[in-house]
């Protein structure tokens, strides 16, 4: 029997949980004894590891989210024509793996899909150790993972920012392509046959990714030239999100200038120490206050982070910012807002397209971590209040 928990007076949590535990859950001891012998044999027969494993996917997602927060994203759709075949591969996985493990430079096209829709695409340049450049329409971002630094450049405005990310468990200190190399080295791959992409015959292998408590991606599928063994495409797939690295060119020549964290001549440069700590709904309210000026006093139709840099050109900044200190505070609030929006999946935005100003209309809400049955809500006049979940209008979920 579980002892009473003083903080658990509001709902019968123990009762509820114990309801899921009724019935037979006791181990079959004979079977476990036999399994003990079998697993020992499997353990002893398993190969020695090459290096400690890390999960490249969550690292990527963390970086992706930080990137989204720091730079915003531009959407350009493109889809490759793919014809599936089931012929057996003519190259060995060992050859493909070797080519990936030997990668020091690479270029590829990144496509991220969420919920079946294209989220964004980018041209990516990678140079070991830990330098990466992502180019999207009008926005270029350069990462130096070893230093935890990001350079973002908005070319039309000739504006650049340099951010150092703190308080996030140093997500930038992970070079996710080198982690990809480790995963390929450590995990077993299952042959997927061949298929033809853009007239080229590719052999495929699928790796079941190690489960991670944060979820995310389930499989990595690598497609390599069926004749040379050079990887040309990698696909990460999860229940709701997928990422494709296509037109992969290992060994591509990349000038140091491409991955330099020095902005070009003539750019206005701002440096920010971006802290992801404690983002709050006040930050999101601040973001909405700015963003709605781009829509003539209406809330933006979407809070997708890749839309923001486009709309930023239409925002009336001057009406709300009159000093560099205020500008800095605004940048921090916006950065934290996108961190929150990209890192939580439980918020709702019923205010899309509605006029600003109403003190009674909930335009954004998310569950209140500190109060069961309550939500934190932003109202049309940008005020922030905690309210009972039951007070939310039904259509607002």
């Amino acid at each position, binding site marked *: 029997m579980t002892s009473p928990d003083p903080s658990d007076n509001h709902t019968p949590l123990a009762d509820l*949980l114990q*309801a899921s535990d009724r019935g037979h859950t006791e181990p079959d001891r004979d079977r476990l004894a036999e399994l003990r012998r079998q697993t*020992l044999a499997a353990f002893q027969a398993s190969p020695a590891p090459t290096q*400690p*494993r*890390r999960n490249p996917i969550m690292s990527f997602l963390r970086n992706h989210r930080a990137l989204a927060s720091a730079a915003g994203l531009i959407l350009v759709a493109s889809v490759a024509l793919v014809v599936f075949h089931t012929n057996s591969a003519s190259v060995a996985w060992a050859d493909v793996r070797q080519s990936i493990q030997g990668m020091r430079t690479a270029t590829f096209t990144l496509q991220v899909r969420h919920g079946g829709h294209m989220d964004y695409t980018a041209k990516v340049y990678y140079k070991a150790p830990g330098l990466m450049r992502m180019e999207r329409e009008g926005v270029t971002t350069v990462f130096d993972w070893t230093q935890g630094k990001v350079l973002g450049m908005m070319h039309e405005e000739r504006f650049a920012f340099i951010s150092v990310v703190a308080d996030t468990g140093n997500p930038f200190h992970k070079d996710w392509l080198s982690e990809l190399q480790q995963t390929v080295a450590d995990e077993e791959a299952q042959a997927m046959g061949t298929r033809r992409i853009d007239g080229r015959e590719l052999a495929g292998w699928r790796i079941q990714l*190690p489960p991670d408590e944060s979820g995310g991606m389930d499989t990595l599928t690598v497609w390599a030239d069926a004749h040379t063994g050079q990887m040309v495409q990698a696909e990460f797939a999860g229940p709701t999100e997928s990422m494709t690295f296509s037109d992969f060119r290992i060994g591509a020549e990349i000038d140091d200038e491409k991955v330099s964290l020095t902005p070009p001549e003539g750019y206005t440069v701002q440096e920010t120490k971006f802290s992801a700590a404690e983002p709050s709904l006040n930050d999101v309210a601040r973001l909405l206050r700015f963003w709605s000026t781009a829509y003539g006093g209406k809330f933006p139709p979407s809070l997708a982070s890749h839309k923001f840099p486009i709309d930023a050109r239409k925002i009336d900044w001057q009406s709300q910012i009159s000093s560099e200190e205020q500008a800095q505070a605004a940048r921090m609030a916006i950065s934290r807002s996108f961190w929150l929006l990209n890192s939580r999946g439980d918020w709702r935005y019923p205010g899309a397209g509605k006029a600003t100003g109403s003190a009674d209309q909930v335009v954004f809400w998310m569950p209140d971590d500190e109060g069961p049955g309550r939500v934190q809500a932003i109202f049309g006049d940008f005020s922030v209040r905690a309210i009972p979940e039951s007070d939310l209008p039904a259509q607002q979920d």
Partner: protein
Amino acid sequence: MATRMNTGPYDTPDALAAALRDGDADAWLALYDRYAQRLWREVARRLGPGHPDVGDVVQEVLLAAARSAKGYDPKRGSPWAWLVGIAKHYVAGRGRTRQRELRLAWEWWQRLDGRTRLWMSGQQEAPPDVLESSELAVLVRATLDTLPLEQQLLLTGRYLDDRSAKDLAEDLGQSPGTVRVQLHRARNAFRRSFDRLAGSGQTTESEAAR
């Protein structure tokens, strides 16, 4: 500071990982003896008690763990979290909470028509027939499935295995203080998710199947 574990000479995750990496058979057996039975119960809960595949899934999980144990990296989580992480993966492939089953459970909950209100607000004991119902178990399991693995482990460890904050800290390689804070968040997350699931009946296929 490394969290200490009750696995004989391999008393920290780092020490255990090092021994496993070296192919130390005793290290594997220490890990097995410590967690195999708990893992069986955990899998049984996740699939649903009495599910015919429990033994097979446990076997697949433990064999997979044995084959990859030399690469176990304590930076990715405690041994228990690592094992349950593997189990979650296999359970998801076998015992997905079917949408229809969840829909029926939700409809059952709606038919209770407020009988649970006083209980849910902590003002009354639970109706015994509700507690015993398989539909409630489906709702609770589906709710747990929507939470991050660490929160699931905290809640099942605390409320089903009656483990203390100190025990949970050892399970998850964290300090007891951190565990208390996370347990508080896990409780809130569970309540929210249960309210959402039972209240609205709105769950996606992926939520139900995770």
